């Protein structure tokens, strides 16, 4: 990898590490076939494609195909093949939940494979597949906000929103992008398929580990907790706190309200414990020594060189000690 390419991806490395760890697979092993992607019907018109980086949600219907997040760039062709097992209709829209390359890396390839007559490339007048996202995703990719993530221009969002929500209607379904300020990053959207009763959460909700709080890109634990509370406002279970509205997590399993409420509870409890220790005058080292995440580490702990349970605690300390 040359130095320029290295710089492009340097900012994304923590996320790549998390994606790899959470999926317990390594697509880069020389000479080995990458693991097959999982294609799982979620509910209504919505499917999950897992194993390409971040989770990918696909909505299909007579109007065509809408794709939420596109995985790592090296997996884009396999994602396209997986989409083709679900529908032979044209890919019409791509939506990004946030800027990280394990969710945006396939934008160019997947966008180029589709078409949308309603949207034209400003330079060549060719129809293009519009990529929707919160405006900070475009700002970061275009350099308006300095950021080491550097995707080709064709991978950038061409239609963004800067308010709290953005409405669409496609395949007979109302779809709403809802901005979650300063959560996993500063540009998170959750994507709510209202008829299918499915929400693609991006990385504000994971089932694999503690959340990665990308402070350098405006993330915060409080923003993630707020986003989870908003998810809970939207999710309605079927009987016995099971089924009903389903959430496609950023990494890991499909969930209903119960899993989301447990994740919210855990993060709230950890926050309260760390704040209590800060109020007692403890230093970051003392807080870590007190093991405020001890009872959850066996389930959600993470220990890579770039993101770890220890760093998770330090990050929360820094946020609430201010």
């Amino acid at each position, binding site marked *: 990898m040359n130095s320029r390419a290295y710089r492009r991806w340097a900012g994304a490395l923590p996320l790549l590490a998390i994606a790899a760890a959470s999926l317990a697979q390594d697509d880069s092993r020389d000479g080995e076939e990458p693991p097959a992607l999982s294609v*799982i019907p979620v509910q209504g018109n919505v499917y999950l494609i897992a194993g390409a980086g971040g989770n990918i949600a696909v909505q299909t219907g007579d109007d065509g195909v809408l794709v939420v997040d596109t995985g790592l760039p090296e997996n884009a062709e396999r994602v396209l093949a997986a989409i083709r097992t679900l529908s032979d209709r044209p890919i019409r829209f791509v939506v990004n939940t946030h800027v990280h390359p394990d969710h945006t890396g396939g934008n160019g390839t997947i966008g180029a494979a589709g078409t949308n007559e309603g949207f034209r490339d400003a330079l060549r007048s060719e129809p293009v597949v519009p990529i929707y996202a919160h405006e900070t995703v475009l700002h970061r990719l275009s350099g308006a906000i300095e950021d080491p993530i550097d995707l080709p221009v064709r991978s950038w969002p061409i239609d963004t929103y800067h308010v709290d929500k953005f409405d669409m209607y496609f395949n007979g379904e109302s779809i709403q992008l809802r901005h979650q300020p300063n959560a996993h990053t500063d540009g998170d959207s959750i994507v709510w398929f209202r008829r299918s009763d499915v929400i693609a959460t991006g990385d504000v909700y994971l089932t694999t580990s503690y959340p990665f709080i990308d402070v350098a890109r405006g993330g915060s634990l409080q923003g993630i907790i707020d986003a989870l509370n908003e998810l809970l406002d939207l999710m309605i279970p079927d009987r016995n706190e099971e089924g009903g509205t389903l959430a496609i997590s950023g990494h890991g399993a499909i969930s209903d309200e*119960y899993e989301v409420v447990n994740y919210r509870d855990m993060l709230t409890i950890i926050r309260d414990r760390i704040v209590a220790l800060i109020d007692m005058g403890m230093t970051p080292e003392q807080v870590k020594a007190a093991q405020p995440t001890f009872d959850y580490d066996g*389930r959600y702990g993470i220990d890579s060189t770039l993101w770890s349970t220890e760093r998770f605690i330090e990050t929360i300390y820094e946020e609430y000690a201010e």
Partner: protein
Amino acid sequence: MKKVSIVIMAGAALCALPAPAQFNLAGSWAQRQHEDRGERGGGPQIGDYTGLPINDAARLRADTWSPDQWTVPEHQCEPHPIDYAPLGPASMLITADHDPVSYDVIAWHLTFAWMNTTQTIWMDGREHPPEQAPRTWMGHSVGRWKGDILVVDISHVKEGWIRRNGVPRSDLAKITQYWILHEDILQLVTVVDDPVYLEEPSVRSVAWQAHTGYRMGPYPCSARVELDRPRGYVPHYLPGANPLLRDFSEESGIPWEATRGGAEQMYPEYQEVLKRLLSEDAQ
């Protein structure tokens, strides 16, 4: 695991009177509530972890758990998970789906009285769903016959509880059921192997008696806001701050250390430890 296997073998041996191989589970079954009294009715007291092979992580979660959780609407309609539901109230209706040609059983459906939860045991050789598929209270059950014991491997379970006073069981647990028929008594041995919260697998048995006259009623639940709470309110105690934790020890006379659970409490040798602790408490 060796000790667990011995327990299961012993349980099976006790039921080794003549029984038809691959018996028919279908029918209605009344629960025999002759064991685990502490799990019945009002349930266990806070801080009672006796006999549970839990680790320190489980202990901390249980110590900081608050029953106030049940005032939060999202937690009000949780039924018991598959490894706790059989403890009751759990009279059962069991039906079968048959292959229309061979009449082989494709699936058993076991509906428990408490909140009408239904476990489906697939007998058609299917595999568990992909890792990313949703978790459920009853999990995904795949059954196979081992002689005259129906062995059921359960995956995709939601996080649940080993005891309903906050002692957790993670969604990474491997749960195995052993169904054994002894004349008109149906026995279930459940083994829970949880790498997150257990030091050793938890083993429990329950029994039902055939009851042809049993009729199950509906058990609906709808969540209600009973107390105004701030958005995102999560009831819990900070570590060391639970004022209710020692009540069980003080009221029952069981030494505090013995209320804390641990794998050693599953074995007869622990009686000697308990005698010593009681003796120390008396001094």
